[in-house]
């Protein structure tokens, strides 16, 4: 599926570098967590992103974050919800303002959850039509708890409206 942002297709300006491929000297690249040092060594103005697995403690990214334009979290399966906590911690505790990309195999039905945890873009291996993702984003308009999107509480209790 193409890269998705807010329910719409977006051009991907990043190049994802795998475990053992050579690292381009320039251009926007996403490196695996294990190659983060190598990526940082490329020079301060080369745009850098990193992919983390669900077991990575995001606080380890703290020193590198000022240099990172993107963090990709991974749903190795849709059942593994750790990426939600990672994304939310990146926004809430580490004040990361760059792109958070969901990768792997999340379900469209998890899209709203991802957005409310701070994910901005989705790049999945799934095949369904983009409209399923758009619909998943629009179908529910009410939420009952705070999120990193800081939807304003409205009226009664913990409720807020999603846009």
């Amino acid at each position, binding site marked *: 599926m193409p890269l998705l942002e807010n329910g719409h297709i977006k051009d991907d300006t990043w190049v994802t570098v795998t475990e053992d491929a050579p690292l381009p000297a320039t251009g926007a690249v996403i490196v695996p967590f294990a190659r983060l040092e190598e990526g940082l060594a490329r020079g301060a103005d080369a745009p850098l992103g990193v992919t983390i697995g669900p077991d990575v*403690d995001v606080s380890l990214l703290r020193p590198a974050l000022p240099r990172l334009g993107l963090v990709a979290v991974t749903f190795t399966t849709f*059942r593994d919800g750790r990426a939600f906590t*990672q994304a939310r911690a990146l926004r*809430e*505790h580490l004040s990361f303002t760059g792109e958070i990309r969901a990768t792997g195999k999340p379900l469209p039905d998890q899209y*709203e959850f991802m957005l409310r945890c701070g994910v901005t873009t989705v790049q999945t291996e799934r095949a369904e039509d983009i409209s399923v993702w758009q619909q998943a984003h629009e179908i529910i308009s*009410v939420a009952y708890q*705070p999120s990193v999107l800081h939807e304003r509480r409205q009226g*009664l209790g*913990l409720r807020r409206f999603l846009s």
Partner: protein
Amino acid sequence: MSTDTAPLPVGRYAYDQVDRTFLSQRVAQFREQVNRRVKGDLSEDEFKPLRLMNGLYLQLHAYMLRVAVPYGMMGSDQMRMLAHIARTYDRDYGHFTTRQNIQFNWIRLEDTPDILQHLADVDMHAIQTSGNCIRNVTCDEFAGAAADELLDPRIHAEILRQWSTLHPEFSFLPRKFKIAISGSPHDRVAARFHDIGLVARPGAQGRPVFDVFVGGGLGRTPIIGVQLRDNLPEEDLVAYLEAIVRVYNAYGRRDNMYKARIKILVQALGVEAFREKVDAEFALMDRADYRLDPAIVDGIRARFGIPELVAPADAAQKLAADRKADPAFDRWVRTNTHPHRNDGFISAVISIKPDGGIPGDVTADQMDLIAELADGWSFGEIRVTHMQNVVLGHVRKDRLHELWGKLVAAGLGTPNIGLVGDIIACPGLDYCSLANARSIPIAQKLSARFADPELQERIGRLHINISGCINACGHHHAGHIGILGVDKRGEEFFQLTLGGSAANDVAIGQIIGPALPEDETVDAIARLIDTYLVLRQGDEQFIDTYRRLGAASFKDAVYAPA
């Protein structure tokens, strides 16, 4: 269906248009998901967590739909809708569960979107009654009525229900997550057998404070929860629970579903290390964002209907006279009622455990009758208990005898609450694909064997819990007498545990010896109880005799028939 101007339903949160919008969107979403499944866009593997989030299980013979009864509270209109669903889509009955919900055992997948729409019409749903998410929050069945209560826990149960509903971060946890909350010093919710147990009481500034227990549970590895925090201020309730569940989501095991509950994480890290992680998370949080403002609490409280408790001055005297005149009624009052905070009222427990019956099963007609009685006697309010019974919370004492007469006429007057006949049993091999043995027939035989109400009362308080396999849905570890179905070379056997308790004296039952064949189990339990009657001092309860004398005194009775 109630409207925004209708009187508020007693004892539970009244939905308004926003809540209804949410529910109908949720139904539409599920309809769409069912469509995608039918079209093949979703594999069964992918559909499974989505249907589970809507309470739909695949059982041995059919789909099972578990409908949420938040903190066990519902109204007569909702009960009537459940009766309608039982008649239209099931085989005329439903089953109350130990987590205060109701489930239907014979559901067709294609019907579920329509059933969910019917439920939504009366502000009900099946959201998060299964799946690896935060489940229905359970609560004291005498909440808001009990004489011993310090604080009505339902307001905070509702807040936690809302907070956990489609929680973006906690809908794909390592495993299911169960929260119980009590506002009484007498634990009627098994707080320490839950992933999180909360015990609320009034704090110094007039706002509630909470003791927080974590990491309790039954299942394969029964563990008593530990106290993580005392005197948690109300304003930090949501923040602190977020912190606990975040730590669990990040570190709970996902490689082995039998080791995935939070109890295993707490044990693996040790309580101190677990608490440090929670405290660290809590310290990092922007507490203003998560603050549970008193205004939020009061706003939700204002959506709860309050019963107008007005009784004639002589209500208690009238009840005393009725009891004197009618010994059978007197017995039922002794066993099946609970003291109310208002002296003119009493809480009545309707036993869903008729002699020889299936614990927790109710027919559609019985549901309608319960609804009618709730309207006539208890402000239209109905409570499902974790013992799989039903409570009418606020009954005028002078009208109790009349209520009892109607219950008896309908076969709902069994006087056995808290006694041998009040058995908890899981569905077992009659329904469940994981079962080793049939729990229901054992429950039926035991309850028929001890049907004599006089004998039951003489035996006194005794909890029997039956599970058909090690997953412990019947909470056998928490029973005074626990019965566990095991498989021995393809035969159904039952292992007995003694001394468990889910109350303040919380304990895990101990295995007494080798498992017994099906046809010897009921006799062995009868001998065990006879032995207790001989060994007891005065009117000592079974659990106390057992604790005084230990298992050895009972072993002979079980294994060496006279």
